[in-house]
């Protein structure tokens, strides 16, 4: 019996992002569609940044997780439109990011506050960071550097 797509969404919600393991690929908003095409399960995935090296790992992790659940044929389809924006990140994903020490994205282009001490006295160190989706910021009060999930 084929599991329904809602069940599969639930399973995908347990697949962590390889770079930011506290959020799932569903929280991140990069799973765009789950559909059965005959006996093949087709998952549409969109990249966050076009050169993100984690994209291939994410596809592999999704395939592995679904194989573990007994689904034999999985096809991962890359879908670039509509392009991913940080709006696709779920509210749950935002909360988990903050708790992990990464400031969640904001339309204004910078973090609202330091994810460690909540101070609003924050400064940008660099537009880019440890992964294509992050920038480096620093708190002027607790003086700790932190990652900001950048908004595009």
């Amino acid at each position, binding site marked *: 019996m084929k599991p329904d797509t809602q069940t599969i969404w639930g399973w995908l919600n347990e697949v962590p992002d390889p770079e930011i393991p506290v959020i799932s690929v569903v929280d991140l908003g990069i799973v765009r569609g789950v559909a059965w095409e005959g006996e093949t399960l087709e998952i549409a995935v969109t990249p966050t*940044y076009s*050169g*993100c090296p984690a994209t291939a790992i994410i596809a592999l992790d999704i395939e592995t997780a679904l194989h573990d659940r007994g689904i034999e044929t999985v096809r991962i389809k890359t879908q*670039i*439109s*509509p392009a991913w924006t940080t709006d696709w990140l779920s509210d749950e994903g935002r909360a988990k990011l903050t708790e992990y020490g990464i400031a969640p994205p904001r339309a204004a282009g910078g973090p609202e506050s330091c994810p460690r001490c909540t101070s609003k006295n924050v400064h940008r160190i660099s537009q*880019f960071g440890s992964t294509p989706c992050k920038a*480096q910021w620093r708190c002027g009060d607790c003086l700790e550097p932190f990652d900001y999930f950048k908004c595009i």
Partner: protein
Amino acid sequence: MNTSPEYFEFLCQMGDNTLILGHRVSEWCGHAPVLEEDIALANTALDLIGQTQMWLGLAAEAEGAGRDADALAMLRDAWDFRNCLLVEQPNGDFGQTMLRQFLFDTWHLETLRALETSTEPRVAEIAAKAVKEVSYHLERSAETVIALGDGTEESHARMQAALNLLWPYVGEMFVPDAVDLAMAQAGIAPNPTSLRPAFDARVIEAMIEATLILPDSRFAHKGGRSGKQHSEHLGHILTQMQWLQRVYPGAVW
């Protein structure tokens, strides 16, 4: 799927620009003046290579000859590359690299904005994805060029020298050839000439802030976009970029 040779050439122009510049910028990895700049350069290169996969992937589909993006990137020779001469110019110092980036980013952003309304939906999709990354690149390259131009005596002199060196490579990006005219007529891509006023306005604004003087001459080196006369630098890039696939054909990660 549009299968005209001009469409294939146009997609190669887009993909080869991002591929060659992405490779050039990646040469900084581990060598940049400070760690943050090293990371920023590597991330910029990564975005450009990601965009290359989309452009050359579509080019390979349009060509329909059984090649894929990797085959186009790794197994063509210099005369088949359609990138503009600007992107193959050597990195020079950090300032020269950032000035090259600024000139390219400014052209790139105007081009992608126009491509967002392309009559080819696949082109419009790629442009919509890339335009956001490129706006971000331009923000950084413009800020850096302004900071270094309007910086110390030393940094100012180096930026002016870089501008004098690179300016003659700008014109080529706006001279239409048969491919551009065919694309413009089909509504797939803008006529590059139409992008020049917006490009000039953006560049002049930044140069004033950077206290740099634009060379008077409109002389333009040409031959990259047509593939007829690349500078000697492209061959050197290709020997480094392609040697693994040439020596071990079909090798995979």
